[in-house]
């Protein structure tokens, strides 16, 4: 019941938000020089007057902007995301084709960053102001300062070019024609560097948050009580402090869901991955309004779902918080 209330509340907040986003993006992209048919012709190499007109009317780009927008909203209600001009196929199919790569990439990198951030953050807090803490802090700072695409490129130079351990890009080795488990393993191999690259930015953030949270929690009364009760240091750390310190971590993870998709644009470009991020970039370049809006709807849904999950985790971690209120 509580969860249901939570879901409903989230949705009631999210729908107006989604409306704002769609309207802003729709009218913004109208300001861009050239439209989807220009981009299409750019790729075709040439065109003439009649052909351009034909294409514009075919893709519904000859009506007024307002009519186009209301038409779009009308179709959206029936979950129809429309046709992509660049691909000539339904947007939904294109997105669903690309979604898995991005979701796997995001989940893997987030999991990696979260776990590593927790562990290293705890260690830093445990040895606060001593040399392991210093080293970790410096490392975290360095990682945070690194442009992700640069890290990706350097990883390619090292692991793919020099050492030859990992593939430089793509999602699988098509020629090998792997199936089943072998295909999964092959894809996993292709995802190691991208996930690492994307995760790195967030690792630095988690690390800092975790360290601070741990430090704050460790000074709290109940910790002192726990210690006074003669509980083992490690037990205190894990059972009490960690649990409480996880709360801000989870909050941050929710906030970062959307910036991760932005990060995916660059990472997918570096590693030639066929994901949503690159599709979004293409949509902008191609002025493919339906595709851009479709991706936005999808990513908003993704962000909303992630935040919902986080609310639920929150509720589990700290029963005192009434998230439904």
């Amino acid at each position, binding site marked *: 019941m509580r969860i249901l209330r939570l879901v409903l509340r989230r949705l009631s907040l999210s729908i107006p938000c989604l409306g704002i986003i769609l309207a802003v993006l729709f009218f913004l992209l109208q300001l*861009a020089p050239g439209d989807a048919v220009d981009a299409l012709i750019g790729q075709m190499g*040439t065109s003439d007057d009649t052909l*351009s007109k034909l294409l514009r009317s075919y893709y519904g780009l000859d009506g007024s902007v307002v009519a186009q927008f209301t038409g779009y909203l009308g179709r959206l209600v029936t979950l129809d995301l429309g046709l992509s001009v660049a691909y000539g196929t339904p947007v939904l199919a294109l997105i669903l084709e690309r979604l898995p790569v991005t979701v796997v990439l995001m989940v893997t990198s987030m999991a990696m960053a979260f776990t590593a951030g927790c562990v290293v953050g705890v260690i830093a807090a445990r040895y606060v102001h001593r040399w392991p803490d210093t080293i970790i802090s410096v490392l975290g700072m360095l990682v945070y300062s690194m442009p992700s695409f640069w890290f990706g490129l350097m990883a390619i130079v090292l692991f793919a070019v020099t050492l030859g351990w990992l593939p430089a890009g*793509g999602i699988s080795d098509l020629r090998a024609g792997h199936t089943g488990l072998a295909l999964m393993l092959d894809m996993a191999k292709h995802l190691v560097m991208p996930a690492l690259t994307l995760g790195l930015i967030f690792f630095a953030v988690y690390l800092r948050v975790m360290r601070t949270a741990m430090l704050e929690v460790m000074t709290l009364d109940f910790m002192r009580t726990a210690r006074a009760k003669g509980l083992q240091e490690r037990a205190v750390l894990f059972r009490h402090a960690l649990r409480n310190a996880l709360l801000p971590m989870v909050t941050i993870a929710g906030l970062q869901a959307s910036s991760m998709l932005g990060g995916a644009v660059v990472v997918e*470009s570096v590693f030639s991955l066929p994901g949503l991020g690159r599709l979004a970039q293409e949509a902008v*370049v191609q002025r493919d309004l339906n595709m851009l809006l479709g991706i936005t709807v999808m990513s908003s849904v993704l962000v909303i779902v992630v935040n919902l999950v986080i609310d639920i985790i929150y509720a589990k971690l700290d029963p005192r918080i009434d998230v439904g209120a």
Partner: protein
Amino acid sequence: MTDLHVTRRAALVAGAGLAFNGAPLHAQDAPRRGGTVTVQVATDPRFLMPALRGNFSITNLAAKVVEPLVDLGEDGQPQGRLATSWDSTPDGLAITFRLRDGVKWHDGKPFTAADVQFSAMEMWRRVQNYGTIVFRNLVAVDTPDPLTAIFRFSKPMPLRLMLHAGTELSYVAPRHLYEGTDFFANPVNMAPIGTGPFRFVNYTAGQHVIVERNPDYWDAGKPYLDRIITRFIADPAGAAAAVESGAVDMSIFSSLPRTDLVRLSREARFRVSQKGNEANSIGNTLCFNHRKPELQDVRVRRAFAHAIDVNFYVRSFLLGLGKRGLGLQPSFSEFFFPGLTDYPFDARKAEALLDEAGFRRGQGGIRMTLRMTSTNGDDAVRFATFVQQSLARVGVRITITTYDSAGYLANVMRDWNFDLTGETIGFRNDPQISTTVFLRSGQPRGVPWSNQWGWESPAMDALIDAAAEAVDPDRRRALYRDLGEMVMQELPMWLAIEQVYTSVTAVKLRNDHNNPRWTGSHWSDLWIAA
């Protein structure tokens, strides 16, 4: 003729000091059947039906599945694919194609003249880009029997133009799958059904296209390969990694960084060559907005040409993979004419011409400030930067504005919002297909890659029109020579550089790059040596 050009190219390559591994091997031993070839290209054309859209990046993929009436043979001359022979009436108003017998579509239906008629009348003439220009005067296609198609024109159509345009534009689509449908929404566009040596298997947007052997191909015994996988890898460094690691067997259309092309050319595992791409070359041009008073003076345009050291650019920026341009067509073309007026690099002469035109160096040594508009592609920006640097030395300040392709088209072609642009022209075997449209006046505003420069010359228009309808090959050639000279005199635009695409091929492949537009050809004779 081909030999002559090969020699010239060899000299060019040798002169640039690149260790190219020479021409592909055409092994004498018997072809081996089987195997998969993986090819890398940079762009996903997002469309796979060349009958509806004329584009290199589409034919590179789809010409294995869908076939044209004619292609180019090893000698660079037209060679029948779906057509077996052709001839033209002396007045050039009718061109007859005899079609190949016993050809079947991949779905089992027979191929007939009705397919050709439908493709020509409904697709090429009406909605195929380039086709709408070349087949503008096509009034009917008669089909007296299932294996004959007679193309009737309202104005004379030179046979050469028809055949050479045909290699890029005469792809035949299955009438029974398109008739009565909405062409742009037809699923066959993305899953083509043709008559070619390979059948379409799968297209995954942004990733790959897979085609497999057509066992019922009309050329019995071919193709040799089982499968062709074409992967889209846009990042040049990523593509280089794929080639080097052996993940792909071939990279076409200059998709690797030039430094990598040069480096790989020294490795025994690869052949790095421009052979097989000659008919698909491109040119970097400097186009002027003739509405701009400063640029109306021909001395200014000539000064710009003198100020830019093209040979240096080719050597240092293109690493020798290119050549100084002249006239309107690349040196491979039979419409290339050596000895036209030219403007060799001479900065002092450029300054003198600018002085003479009344643009003296003013404050800060600057004569004038112009805006150069460019697409944001690597090559275009590099060329724009070089123009900027070169003109700065003679006192002309250039600011570069870049747009993506939609923004470029809107700004340059529709809004005429530019002073200079570095336009890339793709050559398509005949000046009438995509070149003269850059110079002919009277183009409607907004038509991309046409004369949006504000250039108007009745004398030039007359030459262009005469050549377009000149049925006699010699006369046609003479007219294009005159046009080339007039262009070099007046410089409405300047073809600074010609570039032929470069392919990297694993040495185990045989029969690759054996015609001048091989990448966009059928590949039915390609095989892998053990």
